[in-house]
């Protein structure tokens, strides 16, 4: 086990609703999320002395949030990044805590991801009227190849070719995550779907249909990281940071498409370090989260992180394996596909709630950890939730992972 394993904890989580549109500033939403995370942890503004965030030039800063809430920071930093950033900021927080730069650190994301800047450059009203292509865009905008769906689709198509599986494997992911969203009052899309519903949904970019693609929402979410000693004094059972990897890259990261295998992704380079640090094997993992910008991205991360062999994820996910009460429940809040879209931080939040045994579901006693486990009645708490492996990525070229453990671990 790593020297820092179980030494630091996530002690507070909070988020705004997933809105479209929010009609609010990213600053207003971030203040709400950070306030809720502080209240969740039982911390006051004066207890917080570090704050970090990630964004894509589309959001407020730590300094604005801290100023608004009367927090005097000993450390603040806002980085550029989307998927895989939350886990990297947690790794970064561990370093700051270990070195004594700060004692209690908030990490947040705030984005008007639907009403403001959308991924791939689409403007709220539809296509970009006149597009200017400079920098990287010189070599994609001119061939009408800009959005994450269009880019990931290229790897997904080759994956189907190489493995022989069909888009029915993608459907398994959509069905599983939607089922979990049906148990989550906060989720935007809560009506359960079938594999046939997926197969009938309209094309966005072949090989992806509408039900392969995540939501776009306006939302902010925050988590609070501190030391184990401090965590024991706070409101909830601590959730321990056991290991991970952070923004691990593939070779040739800026241009994926000349790599030998398009769907051999960054997680392949990281998971042995993460599992070694945590001192666990795959069989110890009770549940997972998997960055689901698209159904396919979940599929490929299972392979990259060693949950199944290369090319076998399509077979692995068959028969509802990723659904609650099956072998490897994934994205218990519904994920990006069905809950909403936060560039990954919501996965960490759901994992924390599950590990605390306090999933905020339809059970009247959830806040005290009292659950019925009756899925018909809307309970989404796992019976056994001791170790979680959270997997995230940006593009195929970059990935993070966060192994978390509950107090029973």
């Amino acid at each position, binding site marked *: 086990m790593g020297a820092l394993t179980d030494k630091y904890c996530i002690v507070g989580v909070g988020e705004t609703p997933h809105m479209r549109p929010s009609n609010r500033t990213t600053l207003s939403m971030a203040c709400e999320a950070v306030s809720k995370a502080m209240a969740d942890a039982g911390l006051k503004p004066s207890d917080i002395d570090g704050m970090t965030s990630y964004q894509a030039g589309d959001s407020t800063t730590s300094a604005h949030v801290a100023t608004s809430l009367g927090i005097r920071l000993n450390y603040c930093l806002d980085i550029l990044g989307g998927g895989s950033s939350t886990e990297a900021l947690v790794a970064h927080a561990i370093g700051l805590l270990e070195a004594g730069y700060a004692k209690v650190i908030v990490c947040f994301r705030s984005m008007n991801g639907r009403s403001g800047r959308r991924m791939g450059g689409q403007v709220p009203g539809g296509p970009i009227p006149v597009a200017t292509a400079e920098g990287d865009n010189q070599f994609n905008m001119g061939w009408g190849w800009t959005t994450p769906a*269009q880019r990931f689709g290229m790897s997904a198509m080759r994956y189907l070719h190489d493995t022989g599986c069909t888009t029915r494997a993608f459907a398994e992911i959509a069905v599983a995550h939607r089922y979990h969203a049906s148990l989550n009052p906060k989720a935007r899309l809560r009506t359960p779907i079938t594999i046939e519903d997926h197969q009938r949904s309209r094309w966005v970019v072949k090989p992806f249909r509408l039900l392969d693609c995540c939501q776009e929402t306006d939302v902010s979410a925050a988590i609070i990281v501190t030391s184990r000693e401090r965590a024991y004094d706070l409101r909830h059972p601590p959730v321990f940071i056991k290991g991970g990897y952070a923004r691990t890259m593939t070779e040739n990261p800026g*241009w994926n498409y000349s790599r030998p295998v398009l769907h051999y992704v960054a997680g392949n380079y990281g998971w042995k370090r993460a599992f070694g640090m945590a001192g666990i094997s795959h069989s110890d993992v009770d549940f997972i989260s998997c960055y689901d910008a698209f159904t396919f991205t979940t599929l490929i991360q299972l392979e990259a992180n060693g949950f199944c062999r290369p090319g076998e994820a399509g077979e692995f996910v068959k028969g509802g394996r990723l659904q609650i009460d099956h072998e490897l429940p994934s994205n218990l809040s519904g994920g990006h596909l069905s809950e909403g879209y936060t560039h990954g931080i919501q996965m960490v939040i759901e994992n924390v709630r599950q590990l605390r045994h306090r999933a905020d579901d339809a059970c009247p006693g959830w806040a005290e950890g009292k659950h019925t486990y009756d899925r018909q009645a809307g309970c989404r708490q796992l019976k056994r939730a001791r170790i979680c492996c959270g997997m995230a990525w940006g593009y195929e070229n970059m990935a993070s992972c966060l192994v978390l453990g509950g107090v029973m671990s």
Partner: protein
Amino acid sequence: MPKTIDYSKLRIIPDFDTQEWWEGTRQHKYLVRRCNQCGHKWFPPLFPACGKCASMDIGWFETAGKGVIHSYVVVTQPIVGAFIGTVPYVVAVIELDDCKEADGTVTRVAGVLTDEDSEAAIGLPVEVIYEATNDPKIVMPRWRITGRVAGAWNFDEHEARGGGSRNS
């Protein structure tokens, strides 16, 4: 007739690292970057150093502009205004025929096919063509299928037959 792209709705801004590449397409030459020290080739030319030996002593290699479709997507929903009238269109990643290196390294490029999506398939040979834009300094490369080969892999056919054996 190939479906047209409305280049009047697209403005390309070449930069220090890419202006010679755009000068190449203007002269109907399809260039990739080449390292003057070790011969490694790469695309796109955004990267100003060699990924194999880190040299910044770099030049160009004029390819024959021929290759094989390595993967593709069919865009049905336009995001960039220039493509509103083009959907559905195929964007392909193309492995160039004449850029293979001794250690197995390949160079792949991307572009829009002139062909219908029902015609597209992994494994098919393609070649570059050039299209004028409203900006006299910018000529856009595009790709067309030049033949049929046995075993080419089309997405719709794959789905219709319920998948198939592993190909890698």
